[in-house]
């Protein structure tokens, strides 16, 4: 078996403010193989964004190593695509120019790749539209296409559909699965939504807060596309929920001891 694409060993990170220091991540160990779809779930403030931002190179870990294809991560770059919760498009550029960004659409290979991506994220007919004319879901698809054009080794998504309504979110999840099947891009997606974690992930990582630690992981052995109403799907939901209850009990135990 080949080495993992992403290797995280004993990663720690704390933030220091004037008065105190918050340990955001403690002892994180995570290997992600090429082509995997890892979902990360955990309560607010457990360090999910911090973990993703460290992998992206937007933030630095304090101790421990983070390697992509065997190389330590030195900073952000196009090999690590990042999708933020908001689409963050350039408002003065049309959809196709947002996707191309610093690449010239006059180059035939860029042109054809952008056209292909517009089809892949189902935005035909909107190539010349400005971001203000798009719905939240459409804008987020532009952001995904922008990242994919750079052929990232890994695509990091930080609650990408958190701001969307339930129907749009379900649609976006399907679009993302299509992309994953079509391109085979390795993905790590952070979410609050148990259904989303089970629906998308080939593996679910469960994080607990204060300090942020990996509490458990669940390999989801269901074939895609998954049926949310199926019993097997519900089984996995229960397993994730049970992990959360264990976290809650631990949290209660700790604070109870403090009183």
């Amino acid at each position, binding site marked *: 078996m080949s080495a993992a694409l992403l290797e995280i060993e004993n990663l720690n990170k704390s933030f220091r403010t004037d008065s105190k220091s918050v340990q955001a991540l403690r002892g994180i160990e995570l290997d992600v193989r090429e082509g995997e779809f890892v979902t990360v779930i955990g309560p607010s403030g457990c360090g999910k964004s911090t973990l993703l931002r460290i992998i992206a190179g937007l933030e630095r870990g304090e101790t421990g190593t983070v390697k992509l294809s065997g190389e330590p991560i030195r900073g952000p770059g*196009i090999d*690590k*695509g990042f999708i933020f919760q908001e689409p963050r498009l350039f408002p003065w550029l049309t959809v196709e120019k947002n996707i191309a*960004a610093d690449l010239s659409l006059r180059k035939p290979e860029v042109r054809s790749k952008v056209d292909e991506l517009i089809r892949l994220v189902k935005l035909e007919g909107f190539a010349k539209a*400005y971001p*203000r004319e798009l719905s939240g879901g459409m804008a987020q698809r532009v952001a995904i296409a922008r*990242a994919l054009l*750079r052929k990232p080794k890994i695509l990091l998504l930080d609650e990408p559909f958190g701001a969307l309504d339930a129907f749009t979110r379900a649609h976006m999840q399907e679009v993302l699965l299509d992309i994953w099947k079509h391109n085979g891009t390795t993905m790590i997606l952070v979410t609050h939504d148990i259904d989303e974690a089970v629906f998308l992930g080939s593996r679910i990582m469960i994080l607990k807060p204060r300090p942020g630690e990996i509490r458990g992981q669940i390999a989801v052995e269901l074939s895609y596309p998954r049926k949310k109403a199926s019993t097997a799907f519900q089984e996995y939901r229960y397993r994730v929920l049970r992990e959360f209850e264990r976290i809650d009990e631990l949290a209660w135990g700790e604070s109870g001891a403090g009183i």
Partner: protein
Amino acid sequence: MSSHSSAPRRTSKWAHSPPEHRNRRAVLLRRAGDALLGLLLPVAVLVLWQWFGDAGRISPLLFPTPSVIWASFLWLLETGMLGESLGVSLARTAAGFGLGAGLGLVVGLAVGLSRVIERLLDSSVQMLRMIPHISVTFLFVLWFGIGETSKIMLIAKGSFFPLYIYTFLGVRNTDNKLFEVVRVLGYSRFKTLVRLVLPATVPGVMLGIRLSLAIAWVSLVVSEMMGSTSGLGYLMMDARAMSDTPIVFVGIALFTLLGKLTDMLVVYMERRLLAWRGS
């Protein structure tokens, strides 16, 4: 549930004409209507003015009637005095505005981009900005004489500040979240400047240009009236000395028109450059 009752009912009043055609005509009609409504008051004032003048109810010296002003305008045009004065004034404004606004843009960008330059310059510039504009006119005449230089410098001084301030603000208001995006996209510092900061600054710059232009015209009038031997302002001062009020009115009308025209030009540019913002 009946399948028919849930079908949406459309109002059929416009059903026969094609939608875009109908919309375009409606928009044109509305625009024409708005324009006519806007003209109502000025036209009424002009008609009353002419009528009172003809009836001898207002002093022809203080308020020459519109027809007299028009005749005086035609006379100025025929003798070529108008063209010459207008040319001189336009050249001064262009030079002064170009110098002041250009510097405002460059310094505004530099101060916006670098905290060190900001600390070095901004407080001094803010102090200079508080000097009342008109009060330095005499000083400029003393320093630079009554030739072109003093006028161009006064216009430049006036045009500098709005563009400086709004360029600076434009740079600083660049969405911080987009800075993270360009880091992830691997932009160099130069690319970040050209592809993120500059486009994000355009709205501020356009606003700055509009305000700078307005000040440029005021500065032109002031400088030409304080000491000058040519230009529209001089024409007006000269006419005033001769009690030729109609020419003063022609001057006022022309300055108003010039200000409005250049402002419209900037608004047009703004619409084209900032189409992405929508209306």
